[in-house]
């Protein structure tokens, strides 16, 4: 795979001037690559590229202030990098971005629905339109559309939006179904009581681990998150659905106009609560109100960074 070899060579060349470069290596399971921190050339040899590189490495960037860091990104990951730069949460001069064209990544939850326990998977391989998964029961061929992350089926940014080193030929946008939009439409069609029941039911199994928060590249309060502060006491320790949903509401509102819909919040959820829809709703509102999509235009100004006495699409005086 020539572009990957070119990418590795570029990383090795850049590495002496960097503290480390973040990418992916094979994980504990063939279906799940894991973030790789490359400090030395021998680490770079472990770098993988392909459908199992699901983690968004931009998640680590805002915590690495003062370091010279390289990051390998898929197109969607690069949106998070762009948004972090726009919000001045990271410095462009400290960052070296490496990219390759991406043809989509797997959604482990979708695959678990078909094979049960992810721990039983002993092999996984993508060939064109099929993901072949091997378990002790044999091999299962899953059509790519049923194995891929929703965001990949209609991906508009398969290539890094910004990069210092891009290897391989850029790909055109993917023109498939948009299951995310379908899911949002289905939720929007529910009556308020039904919608509330949906979220109460889904949030019931939340264990309040905050993986959704910590996996989010745009969630930058981290150790100072109001979810865990005693003063102000926004959220009780009581583990009611009300408190859990309250946290998701705060999380979503803090991401309004900032969420790049990378899906890490939902992917990180150990009990598979479909929380990305909450962020998507806010993103669609921001798009309608401010014509703004997070992380797609390095020169745009995020809506929360601007102020106008009267917003064009908010008819405040008409209320």
């Amino acid at each position, binding site marked *: 795979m020539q572009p990957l070899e070119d990418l590795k060579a570029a990383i090795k060349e850049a590495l002496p001037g960097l503290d480390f470069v973040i990418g992916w290596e094979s994980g504990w399971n063939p279906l799940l690559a894991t973030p790789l921190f490359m400090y030395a050339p021998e680490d770079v040899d472990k770098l993988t590229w392909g459908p199992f590189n699901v983690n968004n490495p931009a998640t680590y960037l805002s915590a690495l202030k003062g370091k010279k860091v390289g990051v390998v990104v898929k197109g969607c990951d690069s949106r998070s990098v762009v948004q972090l730069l726009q919000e001045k949460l990271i410095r462009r001069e400290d960052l070296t971005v490496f990219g390759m064209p991406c043809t989509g990544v797997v959604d482990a939850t979708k695959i678990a629905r078909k094979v049960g326990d992810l721990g*039983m998977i002993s092999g996984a391989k993508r060939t064109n339109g099929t993901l072949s998964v091997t378990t*002790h029961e044999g091999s299962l061929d899953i059509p790519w559309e049923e194995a891929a992350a929703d965001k990949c089926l209609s991906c508009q940014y398969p290539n890094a939006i910004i990069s210092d080193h891009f290897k391989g030929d850029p790909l055109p946008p993917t023109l498939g179904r948009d299951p995310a939009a379908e899911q949002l439409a289905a939720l929007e069609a529910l009556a308020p009581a039904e919608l509330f029941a949906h979220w109460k039911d*889904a949030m019931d*199994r939340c264990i309040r681990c905050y993986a959704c928060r910590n996996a989010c590249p745009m969630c930058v309060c981290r150790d100072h998150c109001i979810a865990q502060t005693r003063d102000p006491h926004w959220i009780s320790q009581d583990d009611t659905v009300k408190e859990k949903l309250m946290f998701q509401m705060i999380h979503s509102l803090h991401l309004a106009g900032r969420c790049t819909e990378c899906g890490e919040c939902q992917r990180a959820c*150990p009990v598979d609560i479909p929380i990305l829809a909450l962020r998507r709703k806010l993103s669609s509102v921001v798009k309608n109100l401010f014509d703004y999509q997070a992380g797609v235009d390095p020169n745009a100004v995020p809506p929360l960074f601007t102020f106008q006495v009267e917003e064009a699409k908010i008819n405040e005086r008409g209320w």
Partner: protein
Amino acid sequence: MESSRYLPEASLDAWLGELASSHELIVPRREGDAIVFGPYDPAVSPDISRDATAPPKSTVFPACEELMRYSSVKDADDPSRTLVRMEEVMPSGSRVVFGARPCGTRGFTVYDRVFDAPAMHDPYYVARRQNTLFVTLACSEAGSACFCHWVGSGPADASGSDVLLVPVKGGWLAEGVSDKGRELLDSPLLAPGDKYAGEAKAAKAKAMESLESAADLKPAPESLLAVFDDMEFWNRMSAKCISCGACTYLCPTCYCFNITDENKGMEGSRLRTWDNCMSFQFTLEASGHNPRPTKAHRLKNRVGHKFSYYPGLHGGAIACCGCGRCIKSCPAGVDIRQIVLAAMDRAKATSQGNTTGERA
């Protein structure tokens, strides 16, 4: 009363119904894409097709429990004084947890040494532990995140269980482990089990064989102490950790908690809730000082506690049951096995005057 009985698969629902008539019955249930323990519903079959996403720990050590309720009231005799009325909330009732795997149940043996010991007797924990019976399901096959055999356990480990169900043709051989467990088997729905003993033994051996060879963790306690101050090592080991608490909350052996008073006007509750060492606030002191300021310090504590400090305090017992949930559910794919092995390698290399011996 026989010590082992045969439970035909066709009688499972009926037996669960019977258990539910005399106990609060808790089973693994499918909720969305996860399997979590919750109250038995006769209309919904428990999902025992695979190990549950979350372990059964909340059945004995709830994510949130009310320890007491209190209210402030005026003293009728002296209105200038305020009295505090308190009401202790003790767990009661008899419960059966069906369908956990041996690793999840064995986790409670780690808690027992802490909460039910001469030095400390936690009445809430002990009441629940004594009131809760475990009908555990032996595993037929190991997954790639499983490492129960590394920590002295195995796919048919009965420690912590009251009944162990071993898969045999057409059902399970139900082995009574405790007296209370044997009582549960005294049901006309179960048949004599003698003729299934050989098959059950073979099934256990086959499951054990499905595990890859175990690492020798004997040097782990000392190795982890030896690399305690080696922050370069811990920074690298924790680089990809996102410092959430998923690993701890899904761990059948993590038992750290927080106690808070939740006030509502003149009354409130004292709650005990899960806490986790991966959180910055866990060791944040009132002065603002934090002895574990980075995720490297925090992950070091998590691994050290399980494989060094706890064994040091409890006769060598490792505070890990090898269920692999921390690996399987980690959003970043952190593998605790790699960290322990790397610490052992690092300690060995350092003692030999070579610091390049990292494995991971």
